[in-house]
């Protein structure tokens, strides 16, 4: 489907996947240094919401998932995360919950509870109503 204003075409998807791969190696190194919060921040930054390409979205999800599962201190992580990332994090949490995989769901549920406390129901609303920028 031809991209409409802001959407990335298929050939640019390769560039995005390459960027995600570099991000992934950066995150691995951050995790090795026991900095899971930094890792999650890096993973959420530059999420490509305007891509129609499923591969880009899946590639980014794998990276975010890796960082999410490594988080132990949820409160601390949310303290360190900027408010603008709350909406994107919520979208990834729902993606995680939709996988049905027990450990992923457990982790996502824990983070969801704390994130809703902080960001409120509006955050969930924005996640549900936004059918254009999906993750």
């Amino acid at each position, binding site marked *: 489907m031809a991209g409409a204003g802001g959407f990335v075409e298929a050939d640019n998807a390769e560039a995005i996947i390459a960027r995600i791969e570099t991000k992934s190696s950066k995150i691995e190194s951050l995790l090795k240094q026991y900095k899971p919060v930094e890792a999650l921040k890096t993973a959420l930054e530059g999420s490509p919401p305007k891509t129609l390409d499923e591969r880009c979205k899946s590639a980014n999800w794998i990276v975010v998932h890796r960082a999410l599962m490594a988080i132990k201190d949820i409160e601390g992580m949310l303290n360190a995360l900027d408010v603008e990332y709350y*909406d994107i994090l919520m979208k990834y949490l729902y993606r995680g919950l939709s996988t049905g995989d027990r450990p992923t769901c457990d982790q996502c*549920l824990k983070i969801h*509870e704390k994130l*809703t*406390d*902080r*960001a*409120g*129901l*509006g*955050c969930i*609303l*924005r996640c*549900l*109503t*936004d*059918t*254009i*920028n999906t993750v």
Partner: protein
Amino acid sequence: MAVVDVHRFAESITCHAWSPDHSMVAFCPNNNEVHIYKSSQDQWERLHVLEKHDQIVSGIDWSSKSNKIVTVSHDRNSYVWSLEGGEWVPTLVILRLNRAALCVQWSPKENKFAVGSGAKTVCICYYEQENNWWVSKLIRKRHESSVTNVAWHPNNILLATTSTDGKCRVFSTFIKGVDVKDPKAGSPAESKFGEQILQLDLSYSWAFGVKWSPSGNTLAYVGHSSMIYFVDDVGPSPLAQSVAFRDLPLRDVLFISEKMVIGVGYDSNPMVFAADDTGIWSFIRYIGEKKAVSSGSSYSSQFSEAFTKFYGQSKATTANEASESSKSRGGVHDNCINSIVPLSKAGSPKVMRFSTSGLDGKIAIWDLENMQEELGHQF
């Protein structure tokens, strides 16, 4: 609290409007009738029941200078009611719609009114003296879905509309013979009927509740994704801001001054938004509460039960907190607030009083006289 009067009129209220002297209120109690109540010595007595529509009356507006009531309904019709000899006499307006009418508003000069409909059109109706009837002109282009709200600019020509396609549009409704072309006015585009001046693509979800600021410089509307959008300097290069807020979406907004907006919606509690000195808009507070609200007690007991199931942990303590505070936070309305109507002289830059009505069947009158200090200098 800023509430002056609350009265439960019916099971549920769809829309309401006030008489020019604010002594009478007309509303639709979620059926095909319009009830008019008068307040006398703290009692509300029903004066008239206007029964002409076949389906639910979705919009009512009461003009303050000419004292006419316009009603629109899901039955695709509109009536203009005039008070003759103590009775309200209806005049049918043929809107030429093939879907429900959703909202209506008199223009500032009260020589026209605009109707938004589910037929993806906006009807602009004006009175033709020669034939002694109301004629409707349709704006058929542009809208991709139902038009949920309409709002007139103070210049009586520009009309802003919001739609369930998420966009807010500004049209010119210049009608030869009814409107006078202002020699100092803007572009020639402004004098062609149905010409779209501006389209705002800020929302991804349904848009509701559009209003102009008193000067007509700023536009505010809400999106169903718990966002409110402010557009300053509406024109060729508008300055748009999207403000995301914590809680449930809003349904309607009202400018109480040039820099302050009240939003009402699913949270049953009016919210105050203001622009600071640099022009950045943000959420200030709820009308009835102090600024800081602790996160745990923000939700009603219904929510905390649902959350308990969701998180699979026993939240006995939090549940108790929440149910107590829901009584205190319960405030005035128990259910979604659908509309907010100003109760000040038309054209005055500040709105001191306004009323809200909602799905709980209550109409509440709010007075901001004592809240001037709390609201700050933007008010």
